């Protein structure tokens, strides 16, 4: 994996970060001792909900203002041991709850291609930093699409592995049965190198599993069956649809077969996700209460300390989700909400599992449209519906990657490729094929630049 080099990365950070607000904390790169290893010389940015010992960790929240991580997350440690240096901690939607990175207590992250537009979230800082050359790759976290959606908005690759392949030890939990650390980069080819180092069973994470082998074998399209979900066809805007059609043509021209699939439960996906994710989050975020290691808002008694601290130091979106999660777990509601959602989750898993009898991969949009303007941000509930295409991979635990496929209105357009559980290596190989033969970051950069020059010429 090639690095941009520390000098250039440092320059990019200096030049761009005050505008983009991707990094909340930068470490002095000259401090990182050069280690030899397969990732030696590379520089990574780390989402600010992943612990790096000695560095601050805010999770985008006032609730962890001043917190210094007492230990390093397993995945980060493995990468550091292989030679990757940590450039700093990346901005994010508070406690990973959001699809815009406008819910951070430390300011919005701006989209590098258009500063009036959002970067996407919750790993907004990660996506922006990668797109703007402020690191070689970044770690994010993906619970309902938080790596893939900002990757699509920022024109980079965003990969969420099979659940359990990357250890969650050291990742601040949002929804434990859905969370995975994800990788963002400017090249799909780099991700395999990263996964080889970082993946695999961790004795400190009981949900981690043995990693599949990330082999170097190349992929071909000939004879591959690419599934497309017919219920999604109508959800693409015309300018997105055009790029999608180009991709379908490319697939067919290279010997791939398009297979139509049906996903009748698609309209349950967001509800199931919201119920399960907020339920688990309401429990995972209970520890932040002003008592042990967070800042404290004082009160006359214990209850007041809890109420004051949590209402003052959590932002409105976090409070909204904790309230919802508490509600769906309450005794009266458990059966009709949480238990039911868990059952429908199984149906969704079964549907997707069945797809891979008929197809080798499933192709979907990552988002319905390009990154929206900050001034035109949808309301909270509409924003939840944004996650429709990315959520299934979290509910099923299957691997998925968003890749840049074109440009529309001078903004990146990304699509998503999904595979069956433990087919992470094959998925990355196919993404590499698309990168090498159809479209990639370099082409995206040039196309957007060209578009800018053209519109400038027209002025």
């Amino acid at each position, binding site marked *: 994996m090639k690095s941009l080099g520390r000098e250039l990365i440092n320059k990019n950070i200096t030049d761009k970060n005050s505008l983009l607000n991707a990094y909340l904390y930068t470490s002095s790169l000259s401090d990182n001792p050069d280690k030899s290893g397969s990732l030696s010389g590379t520089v990574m940015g780390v989402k600010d909900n992943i612990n790096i010992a000695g560095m601050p960790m805010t999770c985008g929240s006032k609730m*962890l203002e001043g917190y210094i991580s*007492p230990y390093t997350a397993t995945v980060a440690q493995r990468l550091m041991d292989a030679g990757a240096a940590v450039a700093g901690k990346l901005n994010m939607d508070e406690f990973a709850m959001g699809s815009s990175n406008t819910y951070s207590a430390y300011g919005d992250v701006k989209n590098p291609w258009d500063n009036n537009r959002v970067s996407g979230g919750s790993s907004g800082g990660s996506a922006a930093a990668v797109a703007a050359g402020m690191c070689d790759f970044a770690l994010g976290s993906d619970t309902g699409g938080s790596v893939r959606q900002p990757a699509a908005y920022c024109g980079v690759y965003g990969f969420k592995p099979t659940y359990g392949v990357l250890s969650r030890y050291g990742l601040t939990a949002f929804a*434990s049965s859905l969370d995975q650390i994800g990788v963002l980069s400017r090249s799909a080819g780099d991700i395999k190198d990263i996964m080889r180092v970082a993946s695999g069973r961790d004795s400190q994470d009981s949900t981690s599993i043995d990693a599949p082998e990330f082999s170097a074998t190349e992929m071909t399209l000939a004879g591959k069956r690419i599934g497309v979900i017919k219920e999604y066809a109508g959800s693409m805007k015309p300018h997105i649809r055009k790029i999608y059609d180009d991709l379908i043509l490319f697939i067919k021209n290279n010997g791939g077969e398009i297979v139509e699939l049906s996903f009748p439960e698609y309209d349950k996906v967001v509800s199931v996700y919201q119920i399960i994710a907020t339920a688990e989050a309401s429990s995972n975020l209970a520890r932040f209460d002003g008592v042990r290691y967070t800042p404290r808002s004082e009160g006359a008694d214990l209850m007041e300390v809890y109420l004051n601290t949590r209402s003052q130091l959590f932002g409105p979106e976090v409070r909204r989700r904790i309230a919802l999660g508490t509600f769906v777990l309450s005794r009266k509601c458990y059966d009709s909400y949480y238990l039911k959602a868990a059952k429908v989750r199984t149906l969704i898993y079964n549907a997707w599992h069945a797809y891979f009898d008929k197809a080798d991969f499933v192709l979907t949009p990552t988002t319905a449209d390009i990154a929206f303007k900050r001034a035109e941000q949808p309301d909270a509930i509409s924003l939840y519906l944004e996650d429709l295409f990315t959520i299934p991979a979290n509910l099923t635990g299957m691997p998925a990657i968003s890749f840049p496929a074109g440009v529309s209105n001078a903004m990146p357009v990304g699509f998503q490729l999904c595979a069956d559980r433990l087919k992470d290596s094959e998925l990355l190989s196919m993404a590499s094929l698309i990168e090498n033969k159809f479209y990639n970051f370099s082409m995206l950069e040039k196309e957007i630049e060209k578009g800018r020059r053209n519109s400038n010429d027209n002025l």
Partner: protein
Amino acid sequence: MTTYEAVIGLEIHIQIDTKSKAFCRCSTNYGDRQNTNICPVCTGQPGALPVLNSEFIKKAVLFSSAVNCNINLDSTFDRKNYFYPDMPKNYQITQFFKPVAEEGYLEITGSDGQPRKIGIERVHMEEDTGKSLHMGSRTLLNFNRAGLPLIEVVSRPDMKSGAEASEYFKKIYLIAVKYLGICKGNMEEGNLRCDANVSIRPLGSTELFTKAEVKNVNSFSFIQKAIDYEIERQITLVSGGGEVEAETRLWNVKLKQTETMRKKYGRNDYRYFNEPDLGPLRITEDFVKKIKSSLPELPDIRLKKLKEKYGLHAETLELFVNYPYVAAYFEEAAKHYPAGAQKISAWITGELLRLQDKEQIDTAVIKPQMLAELVMMLENKRLTPVQAKDILEIMHKEGKTASAIAEADPRFGKADEINIEDIVKQTLNENSEQLKKYLEGKESLAGFFVGQAVKKSKGMADPALVNEILKKELTNLKKNRE
């Protein structure tokens, strides 16, 4: 006037003695400086995850088997969500939906003197909380205890009195601490904690009425007193037209009464759900079989065996059953001298335990076979009782065997080599005045003659033997007079 009966159930928390905590590698050592046995996991730092301690499951399954439970090969870990400063995560990892063991029982002797089975509804695994120390307006928190492994033993409401509850608690203690060694058994350190659920109902009814919880009564005697007080309180209340409230009460040791701690409005909603960081727990038949095969002989079986095999009486049996190491000592000694088993048991309870702490008997200087040899020598009349006692003390001090001591020390010359007849005759001759008085009717002087004879033998004569020979001699003398 309605007669009421009491309905009592106990929830006992047992701290399992493992080297490390339930879900992390921190030491479980008691008394270490506050907040030194902690890590990101047991202090609930962001990003930390639990990993199950395998010794914990083994000991949980071992105990559950000892109380006759069905072991669930598949069980769940679940989160019990509530806020409290000594809860690092503000949820406790426990087993709610499906515990590791269910449907067991423990036999006690009921208040009517008859054996009765007390049902055990479930045994489940969970983690302990940290400790709060209230100091005026401040509360100090120590997380050394947070994450320690606990099993909770929930009985069915089958007990009917404070005495029965106390016996049940004692037996659980005995099995966990003395027989299985899965708990250190130190009540001051909180190794076992007991909460009682108490309600009453008209005699003969099978309905269950509102219960009050009596919390943290951590001694066998207090449990009995607190429950009996609570029963009386409820009967008085209900007889007077009142109603028992669902509440938590604490036992006030000084005033000897239970007092309201907090009222329970409805039931607490803990929003239980499966712990996603651990997934379901699955153990195999083989795993369970292996653990069951390591069960020691349990108290009830041991009691029966000791009674039938050795005919020991109640007091001795109780001691042996309550102190399995003493029982083991006895059985080992009896192996070396089966015919003298009863005598050996008397020597253990009467003599050995005066010199030797029964809690440390497994490291006693006097080994079981050494005691057996001593008793054998006594039974064979090689030694007198007085000699044997003296030798025992020397054995305890110096660790030598009885035969070695007797060989080396002239004080312990062979008792059977002494001519007791001669000694008796000499004693009577030397005490002719007293002899005259005896023959005239003062028969109480017999004891005096025995004492003198034993003295004359320098303690080597067996007083019983002396007495026998003296009687013969005195009878002859009496006859000769007539």
